């Protein structure tokens, strides 16, 4: 129930942001009415599909997720500059590597955040998902630091798991 109400609130805020001034004059009764109808239909459909839970409406881990994105932004800037330096050198010199990275996240959202974080930082791309880890392609062997991957994995786990209880 809590997640249904949060989903409705998020959708209302999104609709109000995307659709013009907050008046009820002119055509706006129709616009607002269509907004109300589409929000109700969306919430009813997601309830019927039974996918409204902690992982699809991550309001619990929202603040840790935003904090994690701030840290990830710093990492992205650092690895962007590293890739930029490699590409723009007059004599290009790279040594690509294919490495396995252990993934020990407790929730599926954590696994998804970790894999996307690896892909989002330039220089490393998640190529395949295996049972106990990811297959990662790295542009140069300077990007395959196991300690860096371990830190990113631990941070994405704590950011996405929230209260660490898997219930609704």
């Amino acid at each position, binding site marked *: 129930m809590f997640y249904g109400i949060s989903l409705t609130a998020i959708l209302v805020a999104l609709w109000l*942001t*995307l659709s*013009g001034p907050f008046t009820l004059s002119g055509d706006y009764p129709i616009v607002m009415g269509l907004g109300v109808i589409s929000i109700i239909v969306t919430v009813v459909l997601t309830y019927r599909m039974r996918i409204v839970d902690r992982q699809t409406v991550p309001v619990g881990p929202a603040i840790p997720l935003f904090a994690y*994105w701030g840290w990830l932004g710093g990492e*992205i*800037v650092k690895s*962007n500059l590293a*890739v*930029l330096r490699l*590409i*723009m050198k*007059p*004599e*290009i*010199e*790279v*040594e*690509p*590597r*294919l490495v396995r990275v252990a993934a020990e996240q407790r929730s599926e959202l954590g696994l998804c955040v970790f*894999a*996307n*974080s690896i*892909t*989002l*930082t*330039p*220089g*490393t*791309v*998640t*190529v*395949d998902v295996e049972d106990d880890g990811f*297959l990662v*392609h790295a*542009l140069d062997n300077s990007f395959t630091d196991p300690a860096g991957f371990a830190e990113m994995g631990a941070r994405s786990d704590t950011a996405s798991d929230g209260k660490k209880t898997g219930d609704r």
Partner: protein
Amino acid sequence: MSAAEIFQYARDAFSIGAMAVGLVFVIAGATGVMRLPDFYTRMHAAGVTDTLGAELIILGLIAQAGDWQTAAKLALVGLLLFLTSPTATHAIANAAHRAGQKPDLSHFKPKHPADAGSSEGQK
């Protein structure tokens, strides 16, 4: 000069700076796609354009947005890029991996263009 004018100039300077740096990253991504040897390494160069290039240009546009609604819409576009570009990159990489494309893992260091040109001239 009034405070509003100073704020205006600071805002313009910020967005010009952000968009110029973003353009540097976009051009670097395009250069990397041409210079790097195989499919997987070229994908990394395209990632530079996806992340810092696009986000810095959007940041510069947000500073120029007149009202909060335009700024919020641009921020949503940035968030969408932030969430979807790794998914798209992974989809491409995984498709190539499953199709049997083997990554070239050898040490790649071509000759300097000047040397390469002179050796060709001697042939």
